[in-house]
């Protein structure tokens, strides 16, 4: 062993070429962003529908697209965080319905102010997330199995309890109850800015993205999320509270489900108890399109938001292009495949360019 402690990899550049190094690493950092693939995809989808659908570029269409995106995006963000933390949640779609049902029925049955129902619903949603998280951490079973079980149980309970309590498959209207108007303002209002209608969910969505990005990149908890998903053993060995982090992530999806559930309730007064089945996959798809790695440890909230935006543009773009809505699923599948391939390629390049 000579005295040379230089990097064992061939030091191609002499030290004085720091500028070039800096430059290259900035480029690589950009390439290494998890959301890059999603952004490229979103631009492509946007250009595509701008060309094939005349009305796609109108401001009113834009707000419709953003609204559709926000109803997926509000859940896609916490689902993305969970995925970065290395876990899945298949119960999110029906958990949204559960949240709306609990809020509606509690308010109606107890003839209390709707805000009481909203609060009870929040606790219930967080409790469902807590349950998923604790069972996962305690049993060490794959989250796929655990949340599949929760999904089935919630689906059954949604239908069963609703029939038992209101005798029908939907809840009674709570539109005339105390607090309904103020709750509607918070969860389902819209504001007109110029000619554009902005639904409040869009604001909620963007706020969630900002909050999630802050947590992920700028807090200790965010560091633990990446570590828990990237290598749970290593994380535990250096003192990261992996179990607590995962439970908190499940409670995060509970929070998202609560928010979206309240939006549905206060937009329509009533809730269909069978709704929500299948939506969990849309949230996961948005997160994956947004660059979240299925195996955990990699991804971003912004990416998931862009994934949701692609979803909204495709969903509404097909309508504006006056195609059969059945094509939507095809597009979604194609997007998923392309985005995943692109993400994999980008990541490989980013990691290979040492």
């Amino acid at each position, binding site marked *: 062993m000579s005295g040379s*402690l230089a990097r064992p990899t061939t030091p191609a550049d002499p030290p004085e070429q720091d500028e070039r190094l800096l430059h290259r*690493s900035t480029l690589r950092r950009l390439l290494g962003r998890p959301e890059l693939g999603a952004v490229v995809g979103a631009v492509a989808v946007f250009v595509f529908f701008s060309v094939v659908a005349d009305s796609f570029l109108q401001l009113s269409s834009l707000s419709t697209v953003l609204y559709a995106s926000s109803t997926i995006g509000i859940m896609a963000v916490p689902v993305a965080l969970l995925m970065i933390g290395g876990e899945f949640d298949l119960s999110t779609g029906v958990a949204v319905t559960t949240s709306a049902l609990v809020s509606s029925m509690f308010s109606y049955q107890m003839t209390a102010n709707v805000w009481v129902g909203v609060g009870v619903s929040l606790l219930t949603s967080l409790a469902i997330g807590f349950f998923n998280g604790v069972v996962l951490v305690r049993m060490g079973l794959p989250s796929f199995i655990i949340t599949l079980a929760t999904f089935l149980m919630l689906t059954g309970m949604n239908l069963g309890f609703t029939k038992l309590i209101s005798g029908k498959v939907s809840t009674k209207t709570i539109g005339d109850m105390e607090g309904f108007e103020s709750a509607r303002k918070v969860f389902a209002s819209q504001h007109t800015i110029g000619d554009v209608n902005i639904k409040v969910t869009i604001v909620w969505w963007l706020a969630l993205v900002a909050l999630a990005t802050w947590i992920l990149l*700028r807090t*200790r908890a965010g560091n*633990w999320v*990446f570590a828990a998903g990237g*290598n749970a053993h290593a994380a535990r*060995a250096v003192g990261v509270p992996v179990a607590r982090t995962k439970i908190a992530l499940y409670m995060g999806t509970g929070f998202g489900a609560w928010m979206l559930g309240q939006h549905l309730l206060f937009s329509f007064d009533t809730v269909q108890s069978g709704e929500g089945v299948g939506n969990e996959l849309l949230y996961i798809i948005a997160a994956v399109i947004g660059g979240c790695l299925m195996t955990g*440890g990699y991804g971003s909230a912004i990416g998931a938001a862009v994934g949701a935006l692609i979803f909204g543009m495709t969903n509404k773009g097909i309508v504006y292009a006056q195609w059969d809505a059945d094509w939507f699923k095809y597009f979604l599948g194609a997007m998923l495949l392309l985005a995943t391939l692109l993400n994999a390629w980008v990541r490989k390049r980013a990691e*290979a360019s040492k």
Partner: protein
Amino acid sequence: MSEREQQPQGPDEGAPANPAPRPASTGASAATGAEAPLVELSDVSKYYGNVKALEGVSLEVRAGEISCVLGDNGAGKSTLIKIISGLHQHDAGTFRIDVQTARLGSPREALDRGIATVYQDLAVVPLMPVWRNFFLGSEPTKGRGPLRRLDTATMRETTRTELRRMGIDLRDVDQPIGTISGGERQCVAIARAVYFGAKVLVLDEPTAALGVKQSGVVLKYVAAARDAGLGVVLITHNPHHAYLVGDRFVLLKRGAMAGSHAKAEITLDELTRQMAGGSELEELSHELARASTPTPRPGRPTAE
């Protein structure tokens, strides 16, 4: 989460980037002979159900010294260090840290008592940047309340300077740690332990997957950590590596102690011989000599 104050206790003289043969003057290492060991295991046993993984093993770790644990696969080396690092608890015998008897419930507890472990394969989170890995689990923050946030500038800068101090000049601390070489990864893990003020550094086969040159680099950092006054436990299969840096050697065989020697008492040849099983090795060489004309395995039809 216990908020450990980020009080970097880097090596006071700065670990020399190029640690020469240990300077006997480094306060800590010279005076330790009489001092009590930092960690002491005596007659420790560990059972996995009915598997005896360890039986009556003793080991002591002193400041400024490297204690090597040698043994074959399955000898119980990893089990031994898992007790020290808080992943497992011993079933019999005594485990002392700073003279007090101890029983560690979690890796966090071990860390809080100054014992840092570098595991062979679970030391890092590959997709995370080097600087995030460096501070994982002990991230410094600034600001208060909801604005409390990672001090990313300090984290990046500290990572860079600490690594440079150990002689690793990474081009970019933002690259995923999975993309740097295995030896560099071990060194990052060691630098992290030293930076966070570990008193005892436990290394599980840090050179097992490395080439000759990279092993040398890692061994230098191990020596640098020792010179900084840490007590080191080095686990290895390789008696040559052990003899290069070790001060005392504990040999394990099938969970039991097969020997315990100070460096002065044993030569490299003797160590190698004992490790390979002494007389067993001689027997093996006879067997190999005899078996130079391959005999077909019984019970299996030979080709052709």
